[in-house]
């Protein structure tokens, strides 16, 4: 199985996009070798702008470029770029400027650098802003199509990408559909909704759950906002409960989005899983996923506990 970090797939897709769309411009804040905008920078030096370690100004300038007809991709680590919340709020969201905000290095999956570099609340803050679409692809093919989609789509987009490599979960011929969740594996007992770096772990957890006699449906939610409410409600009706898992604080992310839909439309058992309202820390990627129980084993254990509780 091929394995690629979604930031890497993004960098490759962006360099291709530069050929197809002359309006695409790229802004970075001293992290081009980490966000992988370096490929675009090499190929299109006239359309690449290095803003230095000054993210707020970069976002504001991107908004200005967008208002003058460009399609700017403003890129940094997720925590630093969404940390400039008020600039995004006013200059991108409220202004409705066509800026594509790219946040890489999301979640505890970044490993040794530790909490200060981890995007763990980025979805929560971005989800609170009207107008902004939030996409978190889970493998290479999905990332590449999502990048092409973002450039075509007229409006602000926030895309969340991993530092760590992720295996392919989608088949060749996969077509990214904005706002539509993807059923990766059928199941009738429990629905697991995962996003980004946790999706392949959820697929592995399905096997472990099967050994415990639990038939889990696995859904990949790549568009966190707008959420595929039809799919969420259908799963709530067809299975006994919903279990969300994300490499993000469980407050404000995918789990919260699903909870909001369920509460208002079809109250059903829900377990939110992910980073349990704590700060992250340094460690190896795999060690952290294990310690924070969002690897396959941790997901299977938590999902089984939940299922046993609700099916009593």
């Amino acid at each position, binding site marked *: 199985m091929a394995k690629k970090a979604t930031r890497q797939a993004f960098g490759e897709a962006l360099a291709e996009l530069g050929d197809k769309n002359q309006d695409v411009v790229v802004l*970075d804040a*001293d*992290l*081009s*070798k*980490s966000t992988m905008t370096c490929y675009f920078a090499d190929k299109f030096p006239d359309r690449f702008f*290095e*803003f*230095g*370690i*000054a993210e*707020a*100004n970069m976002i504001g300038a991107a908004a200005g470029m967008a208002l003058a007809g460009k399609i700017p991709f403003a890129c940094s680590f997720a*925590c*630093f770029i969404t*940390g400039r919340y008020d600039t995004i709020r006013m200059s991108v969201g409220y202004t409705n400027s066509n800026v594509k905000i790219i946040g890489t290095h999301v979640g505890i999956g970044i*490993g*040794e*650098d*530790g*909490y*200060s*570099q981890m995007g763990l609340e980025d979805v929560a803050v971005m989800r609170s802003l009207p107008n902004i679409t939030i996409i978190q692809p889970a493998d290479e093919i999905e990332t590449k199509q999502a990048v092409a989609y973002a450039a075509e789509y007229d409006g602000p987009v926030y895309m969340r990408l991993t530092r760590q490599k992720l295996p392919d979960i989608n088949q060749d011929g996969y077509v990214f559909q904005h706002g539509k969740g993807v059923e990766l594996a059928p199941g009738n007992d429990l629905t697991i909704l995962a996003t980004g770096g946790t999706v392949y772990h959820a697929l592995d957890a399905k096997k472990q759950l099967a050994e415990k006699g639990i038939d889990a449906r696995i859904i990949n939610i790549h568009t966190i906002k707008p959420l595929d409410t039809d799919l969420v409600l259908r799963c709530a009706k067809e299975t006994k409960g919903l279990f969300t898992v994300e490499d993000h604080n469980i407050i404000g992310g995918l789990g919260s989005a699903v909870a909001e839909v369920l509460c208002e439309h079809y109250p059903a058992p829900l377990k939110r899983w992910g980073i349990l309202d704590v700060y992250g*820390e*340094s*460690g*190896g990627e795999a*060690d*952290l996923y294990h*310690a924070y129980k969002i690897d396959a084993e941790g997901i299977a254990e938590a999902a089984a506990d939940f299922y046993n509780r609700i099916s009593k």
Partner: protein
Amino acid sequence: MAFQLTRDVNTIKSYAKTIRMNVIKMLTEAASGHPGGSLSATDVVAALLFAVMRHDPTNPKWDNRDRFIMSKGHCIPAWYAALAQAGYFDEKELCTLRRLGSRLQGHPDRCKLEAIEASTGSLGQGLSIALGMAMAAKMNNADWRVYCMIGDGESQEGQIWEAVMAAAKFKTDNLTVILDHNNGQIDGYVADVMPIMPIEEKFRAFNWHVIGVDGHDINQILNALDEAADTKGRPTLILANTVKGKGVSFMENNIGWHGKAPSKEEEEKALQELAAI
């Protein structure tokens, strides 16, 4: 009991040498981290902790201690190594850097390690915290001082300039900033990524006292720190002109060594070179 400081330049140099060697060992063991800016910062770090700052390794939260904030948090290994030498914790703990459960986080975490004054790692924020501490000391008529190290790349952040402006307004002459001017950041040389020069004139225009030094010359560093302490009515910037990766030939001025750990062979070569200094 307060730490016994020294003004003996050779002793300080030998502290610096051990810090550099420990930085190399820690990063190799962790297989990640930032050697370039840790090594450029080392001589200033050694001068501060072993010659200038009032502190007590047996009582890290002593009210009257001087405070140090590593605003460019990725360079904290140099400070960890210095703290260990001063007796804050066992040197053996250094090899836990960046491991799951370690108090020595990749970027400093004050909730994990007592001797850390502020959690940093998102560049541009440490100086404002240092300013607030300096203002609090003034409010309390306390005589402890605040030292803050920032990077030249870091000084591209807008918040740095908000703090610089405010520190002049509030006349925090108990605040000394050391700018580790090693000319490098991640994407390249500071002059190419986003020029900051003339940085001395910018600080002067903001009403700071400015002193330029060779950031690897202990005498110059000590004189500048003394001058800063004697300067009344305004904060001081010490512009420390340094070499990124100082002391390891293949790292010096090489942008590639900003955030990469040495291999075992590179570690050996680096330690040999540092031992020979």
